[in-house]
């Protein structure tokens, strides 16, 4: 009998709801081409190029702890030169970015240079607050720089021992984005 057939065919639809969760977290996304305009940025970004800039290799060899230094370099040295804060590594301008087709992960890791040479020509730069802590802002957004930007850093050398040296920066001039 059709006693159980009062209901007609109800099509079973398996709704495979693919929920794509795309979080637009603007705090992590930065546009390096955007000109920094806030007060913090203007404090660090210099309008004119500081004079007598030295290369990274020279500064690494010669600078002593506490020396005021002006160093020119390009942002890079590894596939991730930025830390996500106001700090990054720069390399000596004598190094050439890896050409396309070499199979390098990124042009700014300068992996085609000899590792020892690259180590000698790479230095860490950070912008700190009054307590000496690295500023939490991403350098890309804060300073308007990106990988392979050529910049001139003005700051103080910080040498922990004979091997380790970094720069606590107080100004940056962006020569080439």
């Amino acid at each position: 009998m059709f006693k159980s057939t009062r209901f007609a065919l109800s099509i079973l639809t398996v709704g495979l709801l693919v929920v794509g969760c795309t979080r637009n977290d603007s705090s992590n996304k930065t546009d390096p081409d955007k000109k920094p305009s806030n007060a913090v940025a203007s404090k660090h970004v210099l309008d004119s190029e500081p004079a007598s800039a030295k290369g990274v290799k020279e500064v690494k060899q010669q600078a002593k702890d506490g020396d005021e230094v002006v160093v020119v370099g390009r942002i890079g040295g590894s596939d991730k030169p930025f830390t996500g804060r106001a700090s990054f590594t720069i390399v000596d301008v004598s190094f050439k970015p890896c050409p396309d087709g070499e199979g390098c992960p990124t042009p700014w890791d300068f992996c085609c240079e000899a590792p020892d040479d690259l180590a000698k020509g790479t230095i860490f730069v950070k912008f700190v607050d009054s307590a000496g802590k690295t500023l939490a802002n991403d350098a890309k957004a804060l300073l308007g720089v990106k990988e392979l930007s050529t910049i001139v850093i003005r700051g103080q050398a910080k040498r922990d021992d004979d091997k380790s040296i970094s720069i606590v920066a107080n100004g940056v001039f962006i020569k080439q984005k």
Partner: protein
Amino acid sequence: MYEAFGFRLLPWDYGVRNLLRRPARSAMTLFGLTLVVVLVLVVVGFIRGLEVSLSVSGDPQVVLIHTLGAAENMENSSIPSSQAALLSASLKSVQRQQGPSGSKVVCASPELFLGTQVNIDHESEESLGLVRGITPATPLVRRNVQILQGNWPGPGEVLVGRLAATKLGTRPEELAVGKTVTFEGRTWKISGHFASTGSALEAELWCPLEDLQLAMKRQDLSLVAILLASGADLADVDEFCKERLDLELQATAESTYYASLQRHYGPVRLLAWLIVVIIAGAGIFTGMNVMYGAVTGRVRELATLQTIGFVRRAIALSLLQEGMLLAMSASLLAAAFAVIAIQGTAVRFTMGAFTLRVDSTTVLIGVGVGLLVGVLGSIPPAIRAMRLPVVEGLKAI
């Protein structure tokens, strides 16, 4: 409900009973489709097992410090043992816990990790196993590790992961507590078994770091795994590594490390999905064959239904319903079988071992594919049924 589609539908019973009309044929089709869905579930369970194994392996609070450029292959990483102490002392972002004597214990685990030939007891064949030299500090960082049986390894002992037997291609009994394994020229007594919430670590053999270094005549480490202090993040460690470029270290979040391994298995997953498509395609043709048979064997009957006044769409839907019903039954049978018989089956692969995962996602995909097979297999025969001219159909024998 009869007019849910704007026209009167055939009774539900009609479709159901038609399946029972030729029981042997329906049973064979059901078996075939069940097999198809089981195969789909196995492959999807494989993909899910691989994905989940690698995704649960990364503790978001753990950072791996290794040699520059070794982010994707920790075996190639080599850092001097002395740097472990330097890192522990210098890194402010590492969690420190109260030790038993009131001193602070740094949550940093220096480890030596390698893939090496392992000989099980006195078996003649060797297998490639994954060995990790560990210290008493390791459980402070590897927080998900649980000892299932036995004890933490003492000198000359080894703690065996839950899936190590699968990775070594042997039976779990061969790695029972008290038995021995040989690697790196030394025999190690099995002290216990551990689990780690299904992570990749479960395929490994853990022995004391110093013993392993001694056996291998190595002084270095592969990595130092650290547990971040509350409020600290990867950038803290990254800054340290970039500041101390002379150490040639690099920091990678553990979750990023395993995510990068997942990328390695992209082609495998792609191939697995391709297999799913091929199996589903075979299922569609099986279903189509059966449903074409249902149409050709019922031409006069379908024409009669049209003569009575049922519209062609109602008849097509009824055929679709038959196909769906068959596919749904097959999917449910297959899902039940997979949950009982396939779930948890251990699979060996190059970087370890994992278990097939028949979870809700796997079942949903498997059943979804099964129903898709039912729908796609029924549509062409249903269209054919719709095209049959009534007068010609009534003359059919």
